[in-house]
């Protein structure tokens, strides 16, 4: 049972209907996804094998600042010994148990951080312009294309920004305590496209 079953999204106060008036921007929240933080050593073969057996991802071939889709799971590079696994709603506990079982006796950790963050999906022909207002990373597809991700700040809030479709569709993973602020900032910043 997920403890999020009867929970509220951190973006509960943001009126997403207001984004319907905005041209070239579709903004939705991917609510209640499972978020697991994974840590371990890449030079530990047992660790890498346990992960590839469990979720089918070879961590050694996942480049820095990229993510990969494996079945229902998205795996993001966060650091040389740290990854984020995003699962569909209510699958995180099962995956966490599977991983912890597979990683028994191996120097590693799996932490459920699902209730600590949420995901905002932004797409459309103005999506890039909107994010560029508060982000210093070059979002042009020659620099930042499908499959890339970056931990950076968006209007001063720490985010994990990823490209679902080059230049057109992005996902932002934001801490719950900053979600409301970022939601309001996105609303305000998109007003020029109404």
């Amino acid at each position, binding site marked *: 049972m997920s403890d999020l079953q009867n929970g509220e999204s951190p973006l509960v106060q943001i009126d997403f209907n207001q984004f319907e008036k905005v041209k070239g921007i579709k903004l939705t929240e991917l609510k209640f996804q499972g978020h697991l933080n994974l840590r371990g050593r890449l030079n530990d073969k047992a660790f890498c094998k346990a992960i590839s057996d469990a979720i089918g991802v070879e961590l050694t071939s996942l480049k820095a600042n990229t993510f990969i889709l494996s079945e229902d799971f998205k795996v993001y590079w*966060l*650091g040389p010994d*740290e990854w984020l696994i995003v699962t569909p709603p209510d699958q995180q506990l099962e995956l966490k148990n599977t991983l912890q079982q597979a990683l028994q006796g191996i120097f590693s950790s799996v932490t459920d951080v699902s209730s600590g963050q949420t995901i905002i999906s932004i797409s459309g022909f103005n999506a890039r312009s909107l994010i560029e207002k508060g982000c*210093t*990373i070059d979002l042009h597809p020659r620099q930042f294309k499908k499959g890339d991700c970056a*931990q*950076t*700040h968006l209007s001063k809030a720490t985010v994990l920004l990823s490209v679902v479709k080059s230049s057109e569709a992005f996902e932002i993973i934001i801490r719950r305590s900053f979600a409301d602020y970022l939601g309001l900032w996105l609303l305000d910043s998109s007003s020029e496209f109404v």
Partner: protein
Amino acid sequence: MLQIPCPWCGIRDESEFSYGGEAHITRPLNSENLTDEEWADYLFMRKNTRGAFLEQWQHAQGCRRWFNIQRDTVSYKISASYKVGEQPPQGMGNEK
């Protein structure tokens, strides 16, 4: 704003980083045998180099790793970036 090269993430704006002071200061292994003066020297005394300097930074709002760079304290030009545990560029080291 400085543009700082993180060994994992590439060049990012200074606002993503936090400064960690002089690099390559090792904690003495025999701390219980040190005099107060030697311990204070390890804890508090830092170089104030004019010119090329090896210093620590953390990519605090990115990959959160510590790393070292070589930066000129006059021109602010950054000429090397390397991971913790790696050796500084050849011929380079903060003077003792």
